[in-house]
């Protein structure tokens, strides 16, 4: 059996070599499908990677409190009115205070996002993200300041810290400390500039490059004196058990909200999940479309194999006449399909990763090369090859030796 396998590999190699251009085209067909799937997998893997890196950068002791949202699903992608978009967050300042009072909590900072125009005296209105938070935000989110300082307890309420890109948009410079600007008509003084982050994807769901960060009290002024908090970032005390803390926070907030569990506390991988899940759904949809090209590649294999079987009818007849079993004829052609698809898979994977790398030069994150993606891509192409090679191989094995030998006289 092993002996025959070697023989089949030799035969397959020879016959593939003999029809070289045909083989290359078939391999290309498979490779294109695999390349597109690899590209999507590598890029979506990169997104997941970037968030989990942020979590670990923050010290792996971050817990996020968010209002419970419906899980994004495939249906949402096709729904122009997602059910969650107008829901009001139930988190208020009392919840923040309750969390801060807990034993194992080091610091906690709220995030309250507001909409509105940010205008400089000299420029057009710019709709940056207005984020109202507390000075502790600096400890719960990894970022560095380029210039000036972050908001703190001492600074007056009408001060703002700008993201680098927003600063450039407003004043044409990143040196804007001391400059005056208007947020929703109120005058603010810039006291600091946040260094460019280049990660619009993060667990705060805020692009800090375009953000104007104000104090929570200023934020409340814009919202009829109520702090409507989208998210609370909690940093656990050293050596505190995160899962236990998660339970405590959850219980505390539920108590505040009349025992209604309308918030989620996310720790560790759960933080990554909501963002990556959405990306995974998008990646899934795109992969499905790319999968169609893979099926086309598979049909290419089948097509070429059928041609090959028909060309080699006499050879098949003769091999059977000198003692080849049907199984060994199937094996011979399956090995050919296997080689073609495996080569397509390897080339497609390498090519797809290269494409992902080129695309990532225009994106804020790097593609991620995971062995799972490699196994998926190459496994997929091999199974496509085996699946589509089976029919021609069976067709070859079922040939009647006499009729096969009689052909092409």
């Amino acid at each position, binding site marked *: 059996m092993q002996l025959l396998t070697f023989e089949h590999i030799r035969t397959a190699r020879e016959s593939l070599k003999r029809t070289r251009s045909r083989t290359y085209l078939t391999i290309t067909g498979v490779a294109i499908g695999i390349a597109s799937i690899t590209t999507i997998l590598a890029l979506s893997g990169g997104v997941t990677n970037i968030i989990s890196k942020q979590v670990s950068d923050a010290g792996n002791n971050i817990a996020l409190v968010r209002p419970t949202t419906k899980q994004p699903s495939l249906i949402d992608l096709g729904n122009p009115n997602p059910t969650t978009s107008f829901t009001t967050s139930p988190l208020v300042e009392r919840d923040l205070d309750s969390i801060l009072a807990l034993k194992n909590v080091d610091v906690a900072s709220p995030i309250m996002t507001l909409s509105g125009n940010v205008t400089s005296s000299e420029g057009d209105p710019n709709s940056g993200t207005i984020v109202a938070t507390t000075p502790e935000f600096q400890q719960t989110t990894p970022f560095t300041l380029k210039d000036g300082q972050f908001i703190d307890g001492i600074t007056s309420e009408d001060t703002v810290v700008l993201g680098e890109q927003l600063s450039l948009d407003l004043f044409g410079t990143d040196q804007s400390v001391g400059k005056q600007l208007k947020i929703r008509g109120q005058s603010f003084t810039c006291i600091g500039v946040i260094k460019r982050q280049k990660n619009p994807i993060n667990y705060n769901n805020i692009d800090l490059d375009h953000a104007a960060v104000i104090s929570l009290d200023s934020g409340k002024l814009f919202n009829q004196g109520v702090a409507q908090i989208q998210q609370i970032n909690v940093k656990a005390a050293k050596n505190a058990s995160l899962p236990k803390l998660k339970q405590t926070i959850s219980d505390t907030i539920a108590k505040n909200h009349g025992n209604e569990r309308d918030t989620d506390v996310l720790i560790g991988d759960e933080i990554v999940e909501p963002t990556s899940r959405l990306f995974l759904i998008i990646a899934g949809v795109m992969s499905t479309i790319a999968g169609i090209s893979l099926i086309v590649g598979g049909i290419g294999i089948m097509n070429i194999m059928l041609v090959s079987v028909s060309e080699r009818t006499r050879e098949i007849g003769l091999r059977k006449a000198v003692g*080849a079993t049907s199984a060994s004829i199937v094996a011979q052609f399956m090995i050919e399909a296997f080689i073609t698809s495996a080569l397509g898979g390897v080339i497609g994977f390498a090519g797809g990763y290269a494409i992902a790398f080129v695309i990532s030069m225009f994106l804020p994150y790097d593609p991620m090369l995971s062995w799972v993606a490699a196994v998926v891509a190459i496994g997929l192409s091999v199974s496509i090859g085996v699946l589509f090679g089976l029919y021609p191989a069976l067709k070859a094995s079922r040939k009647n030796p006499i009729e096969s030998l009689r052909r092409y006289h």
Partner: protein
Amino acid sequence: MAKKMAKKIVIELKGLSKRFGFGDAEHAAIDTLDLTVEKGEFIAIMGPSGCGKTSLLNIMGLLDTPTEGDYLLDDQRVETLSSRRQAHVRAKKIGFVFQDFNLIERMNVIENVALPLTYSGVHHTKRMKLASKMLGNFHLAEREYYMPWQLSGGQTQRVAIARALVNKPALLLADEPTGNLDSKSSHIIMEELSDLHKRGNTIIMVTHNPDLTTYASRVITMLDGKIDTDSKPTKTEEKKNTKRPLSIKQRKVMQRKKKK
């Protein structure tokens, strides 16, 4: 008689029929045929085209199945064998020679000859050795690495015979082995077959050419799927019939004489 009984029976056909088509279009290629082939016989099957010679040969070579009747090969009923076993029997016991040679064009001569050994589980190096030895027997040692299209018709058929014999089959089946060859090459091939016969091989050959039957130990004529005549030449007849066609050398000598 006792000596004859002791001879081993290789093939036994009982009431064998092969029909093609359905209903009105049904046509019997072989019609309730009985035949016994003993070890060491050289049988020539003759007959007009369409009389079922090739069908019979295909059935004996396990390439086709009879519609009715029994086929016993080495005392074993063939129809009880699985297709896998049948392939095994083809690989080990039967050698096939075709009218149109059927060498695989993209393989060189030695690989073509070694092909049957692949399916009887012989290792690559040993395959090549055996094939080379067999080609040597047919005076083709220098042609081992030629491609089939580089050979003459006679050489090609000798390669095909070498292939049929490489795994030392008990039975050699030849379907008009000289059908595509000129008379000179035909006689070379027939000499080879006759040699094999002398060495004790069982040979069954289908032919159109009555001249070639002189090499055979038994001539069967078929007509409409039945055996018409089955002449096992007696010892005396055999001696009479030893007037074989002239060898190439003798012919050349004769031609020269004629010219003079």
